[in-house]
């Protein structure tokens, strides 16, 4: 008798569990339909991420270090000012002349990025006569093919979108910071306001509406180029960039992250 009760109890438990799982499934489908109805009204209609492949190229010979891109990014994406949080920034590299009879081809390299370059740069403390070469390097998310940041996210809050952009889902991110540590390029940070990971989103809200990212829009010298690899037009500046035959490089290729952002005229001192 006791055994029969046990068996019935057990079967009842199993049945109840299965029923609950099925009921939940129906509830979730209804919730999904309702949510879809409201949310999709706000986003750009008709954008299919699988039909685009966004690309950025950075021409170091054209960058003048004005820092307007950094400021534009902060304005466009409401990036907090403190503690230092940058979705994009500009670095200045000053390569000094080698010491006389030292047998070196170059002297010391001095790098700086005051406040990310947001207000431009003031004149360096190094006198002009000591400078062999100097240039500016804009930095941003490298749109990695095998992004280490999305690999390490424990919950799936940062991901590679089908159109090549690496995005963060601020409503799902738990703020553990693993992705920030995993990015070799230092382009991620923890947003102190939202307490989630944050990074350059390639101005996703602009490019899905046919606009350009804010930094590309503002750049005065076309040092930042942007395009859609799946829909390239003949007179696209980025198309001309590819055809220019300049030596192209990317940052830290030895790490195997597959960074897709291409730099032209990248010096060996740039990390």
């Amino acid at each position, binding site marked *: 008798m006791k055994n029969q009760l046990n068996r019935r109890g057990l079967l009842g438990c199993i049945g109840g569990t299965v029923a609950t799982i099925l009921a939940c499934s129906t509830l979730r489908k209804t919730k999904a339909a309702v949510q879809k109805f409201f949310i999709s009204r706000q986003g750009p209609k008709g954008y299919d991420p699988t039909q685009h492949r966004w690309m950025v190229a950075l021409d170091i010979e054209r960058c003048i270090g004005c820092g307007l891109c950094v400021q534009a990014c902060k304005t466009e994406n409401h990036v907090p000012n*403190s*503690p*230092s*949080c*940058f979705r994009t*920034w500009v*670095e200045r590299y000053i390569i000094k002349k080698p010491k006389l009879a030292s047998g070196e081809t170059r002297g010391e390299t*001095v*790098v*700086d*990025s*005051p*406040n*990310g370059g*947001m*207000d431009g740069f*003031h004149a360096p403390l190094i006198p002009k006569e000591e400078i062999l070469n100097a240039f500016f390097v804009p*930095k941003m998310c490298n749109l990695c093919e095998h992004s*280490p940041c999305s*690999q*390490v*996210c*424990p*919950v*799936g*809050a940062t991901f590679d979108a089908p159109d090549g952009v690496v995005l963060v889902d601020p409503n*799902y*991110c*738990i*703020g*553990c*910071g*693993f992705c*920030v*540590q*995993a*990015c*070799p*390029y*230092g*382009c*991620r*940070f*923890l947003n102190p306001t*939202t*307490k*989630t990971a944050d990074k350059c989103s390639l101005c996703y809200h602009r490019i899905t509406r046919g606009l350009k990212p804010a930094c590309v829009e503002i750049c005065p010298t076309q040092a930042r180029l942007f395009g859609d690899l799946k829909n390239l037009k003949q007179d696209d500046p980025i198309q001309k960039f590819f055809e220019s035959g300049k030596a192209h490089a990317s940052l830290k290729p030895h*790490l*195997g992250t597959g960074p897709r952002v291409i730099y032209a005229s990248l010096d060996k001192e740039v*990390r």
Partner: protein
Amino acid sequence: MDTILTNDLTVAITHIDGFIYPNETHLLWSLLIVIYPYITGLVAGAFIMASLVRVFNVQSLEPVYRLSLLTSLAFLLCAPLPLLFHLGHPERCFEIMMTPHLTSPMAMFGFVYAWYLMAVLLLELWFDYRRDFVEWGKTEPGIRGLIYRLLTLGVQDLSAPALGLDARMGKIISVVGIPSAFLLHGYVGFIFGSIKANPWWGNVLMPIIFIFSAIVSGMALCVFIYMFLCWARRFAIKMNCLDVMAKFLFYALVVDASIEALDWMHRLYAAEEEIHVLKSLAKGKLFYTLLIGQACLGTFVPLFLLGTIQLLLKKIPEQIRRRAYMVSSIFILIGVLAMRWNVVIGGQLFSKSLRGFTTYKLELAGQEGWLLSLILMLLPFAILGVFVRLFLPRNRLIAATA
């Protein structure tokens, strides 16, 4: 221009040396992430001490078997707390178990923790204590009696086959528990070891180093707590047991020191691009915690003390041995905490551009302050105190089972 002044002030206040990426000014993984691997390390190490009894049949350690398991449990219960306090959105912490990203080592935390807590530690304790729970449940009054009766899970059978099963299951779980303990702490080492972006962390030896320093710290903790508990209850220390604990502690320390030394030897020999910034880090910002704390206090002094005792065991009087064990275990505990500091904080002090350093400002209060970390470190001891009162009765202090 005001902005130029702000630029200079920001840099001056944070004291940056050289060049760092602008996003690296403030450290993200702070003191809470230092104490988390420390706590899980103590859990794993204390469990290994207990498994020496059941799996490797080291009978002289029988007196500390239950104490080791209870220590492991007390620390395990507190292990998720530093993580919860550190998360930007702790209310979303369940996501890690609902949609665990299988390519992320951090995603296994929820499952490994649940497995280790329930299927290893609680289960092993239950099988070991079940008989006592049944007996105490009948004799103890009030709430204590109720707790014991609840803990029997309603299984009152004390027949010989049932007790035999308890013993067999205890042994099986111990065997399963060793790799589980390694996984519980090793995955943390893998989290650091898998970050190829950071040359201080991204290293094949990292999980191994974490596991062995965990074993060392857990064993040192057991030594410390055993000695403390005997002193608190005015109970005579079983020197036989303590000597064997110290012996295993010494062996574990030798292995741990060798592997950490190997790591450094390889780094210095291969001298890759990052060696300059890492050497500056070790000699500069990490001088006190690495060279003094981890190396001298945490490794060389205990190696010397414990090694001398191992060589001259019979000739050293009991009192001196006890003092040496106490000093060694405290130094080891400090040294392993320093090691966690050096890995976590040290890895974020230098820039990924390999051109500069930032500073870590340790605050007193707040989410990342040391006051909270201190409380979280003391909490397991308080919980252990409750366990000792409930489960290690005075008349059978640190008694053998059966």
